[in-house]
């Protein structure tokens, strides 16, 4: 089985978010980048397929050279090969088109993406990739087994789970549940050293115009100061007259 894991290079969850150029660009200054957590659950599941079922695992990312440390980390965790599509990740559609091209050319049986990236939270890429390559698609995937060309996927639905049977080629939008947080792997020293010698191929992009453009970003209003109240009456009064929520 050939697996392609799509890796988004995203700011660490504890990063301070700021914008520049009149709130049109994300300020990367001083920001630490990590593997998108939803993708990391998928990568870890892919490693399981590699170890238990002999799958080959490639990782792919759309982005400039600055995203390579993220791909190297995926290699250090155990992926066999990495591909960087040398163009900035702009909107969901153009990213999906780039990924679909790699997925198609590489003849992958299983494409694992994250349900959404934790930076722009578009949540569209895996579905678009599935459509573009003509593969089956399971979103919000929290469990995946593959037997030959048949797959059993578990999907999170409102208030419960849904088990689906489908066949390869398959694209999933993965999330926590594919593996648990405690299963996530820290690259070990040998893995990091081996990552140095594993292929990281830079691929030029195919034509794909962004179909959406960011006009501006807006941060939520800063939280006001906490007000401590001494009695229930006062609380009711404030909620009614000041916050106007009751």
């Amino acid at each position, binding site marked *: 089985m050939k697996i392609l894991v799509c890796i988004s290079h995203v700011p660490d969850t504890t990063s301070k978010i700021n914008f520049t150029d009149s709130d049109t660009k994300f300020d990367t200054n*001083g920001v630490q980048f990590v593997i998108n957590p939803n993708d990391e659950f998928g990568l870890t599941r892919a490693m399981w397929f590699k170890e238990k079922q002999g799958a080959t695992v490639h990782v792919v990312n759309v982005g400039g050279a600055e995203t390579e*440390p993220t791909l*190297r*980390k995926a290699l*250090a965790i155990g992926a066999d090969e990495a591909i960087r599509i040398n163009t900035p990740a702009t909107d969901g559609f153009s990213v999906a088109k780039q990924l679909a091209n790699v997925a198609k050319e590489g003849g992958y049986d299983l494409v694992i993406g994250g349900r959404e990236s934790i930076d722009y939270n578009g949540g569209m890429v895996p579905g678009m990739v599935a459509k573009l390559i003509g593969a089956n698609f399971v979103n919000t995937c929290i469990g995946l087994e593959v037997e030959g060309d048949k797959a059993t996927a578990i999907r999170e639905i409102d208030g419960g789970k849904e088990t689906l049977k489908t066949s390869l080629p398959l694209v999933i939008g993965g999330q926590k549940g594919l593996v648990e947080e405690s299963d996530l792997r*820290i690259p*070990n*020293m040998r893995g*990091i*050293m081996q990552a140095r010698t594993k292929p990281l191929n830079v691929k030029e992009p195919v034509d794909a115009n962004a179909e959406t453009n960011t006009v501006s970003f807006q941060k939520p209003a800063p939280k006001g100061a906490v007000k401590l109240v001494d009695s229930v009456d006062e609380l009711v009064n404030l909620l009614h007259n000041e916050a106007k929520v009751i």
Partner: protein
Amino acid sequence: METETKNNELLRGGQFLVKETKAEDVFTPEDFSEEQKMMRDSVKEFVDREIWPKKEEFEHKNYALTEEVMRKAGEMGLLGVAVPEEYGGLGMGFVTTMLVCDYISGATGSVATAFGAHTGIGTLPITLYGTEEQKKKYVPKLATGEWFGAYALTEPSAGSDANSGKTKAVLSEDGKYYKISGQKMWISNSGFCHTMIVFARIEDDKYITGFIVENDPENGISMGEEEKKLGIHSSSTRQVFFSDTKVPVENMLGERGEGFKIAMNALNVGRIKLAAASLDAQRRVIANAVQYANERIQFNVPISSFGAIKLKLAEMATSAYVGESASYRAGKNIEDRIALRVKAGNSHQEAELKGVEEYAIECSILKVAVSEDIQNCSDEGIQIYGGMGYSADTPMESAWRDARIARIYEGTNEINRMLAVGMLVKKAMKGHVDLLNPAQAVAAELMGIPSFETPDFSELLSEEKAMIAKLKKVFLMVAGSAVQKYGTELEEHQQTLMAAADILIEIYMAESAILRTEKNAERFGEDSQKEQIAMSQLYLYHAVDIITVKAKEAILSFAEGDEQRAMLMGLKRFTKYQNMPNIGELRRTIAHKVISENNYPF
């Protein structure tokens, strides 16, 4: 993995004092390769997942937890970083081994100690001095954490005077093994170790001999109870008793009578690693302290808005920054020296030994400086937390207790102070470092008329660098006169040695920070280094004060009359700023960054 070397001419150990080091020639934490950064991040993740959340358990004498973490560290490859690949390790360069040691040691002194004892003094002597058979037999197991190592040097009556141990090794009649008998104490990792490097005396040898001893209770080895200690509560520390313990002759480490040298050389590495091991502890204390200060509201505002707290945060961050600067500067010097020797045909083993030995002075300087920094840092950490800091429910209390041991083990800070100066004097006598000519030049300068020209200090950090050059003259003046006065009896005059050591330490630390900042300002732009410039200036300002006090103390104790007056005048001249820094402003600049980032951000 060797990081790229730019040094055209590699300074020898101790030469920093008499030769100018260029900023572009120092290695800084900003020079880590992508791979080194990935390793650092992995170690941090490992600590954040496996150690930090269990911090409290480590305070309850959970030795099994330490062992478990060590085993996991082995699986991560962290125990074999410094071990050559042919013995199951990763064969990394010295800087990388320091980096791993730095970041694995930040959460608790219990793991820091277990890690240091195992990799440094428990494994390293075998890789450095072992025979091929010994290395093949023991090192792969130690490198992966299948086995754990300990180091048994100290005895009840032989602490700082390590060569005075009473443990005996007697050759059996058939000449096949030695029988070791004696008592060792303060043995880290003893509770779960498989091997021990044991030092014992054969007959009436002048020097002790090292042996690799497998920990087998059937073979006359018994252990005392776990010691009740102030800190590092989950580091296993016991007495170890040997009673006719049979050790095959092929387990002798190095030559007969070479044990003291092995012990001391292992400690050189241990010392610089201990400095590294005290760095992330500082970063974590600072991060916690600033987070607390930003959240703790008094008088309706976060206490981080108060000048008294800003002062502390600025000083804490400065110490950590300076410690990092000096540790990695020396670490890279060692790595380069090893590479140079390998190139010249030395075996890796020989090269590493000589490489570290070359910088033994710097190793001692760092051990003293950084172990005292973590003590101060955690002390102020408690102070920022106020009453909560005194409670075992916050991480400051254990950080403070754990820090205390760093000033004692790997040679007390007093021993290391004396060693730093003593070794420098010895190097001068051997002609490895020319102190005589520079000292004479300073003496001549003292007699001459001082220059009244106003130097141009418009260039970044130029006044600071000029100050460092003058502080070096203070050391040469004080140490030079002391050597002249006391000759070979200098070592009897410990108060003078202590003062001289403090001068030496402050010079090395201050210079390292200035050079790191200068290098980074050059490549990343001065604007990006605003706080780093402030930290370098703040540290130097304190260094000048400390040096003034210590030098005066020394001068008053051994010089009289005209000579005393001339030296005090010189001291004044060599510690004079043309433009005094605004200390309050420097601290505000530094604190602002720490507070707004809510972390140690450098």
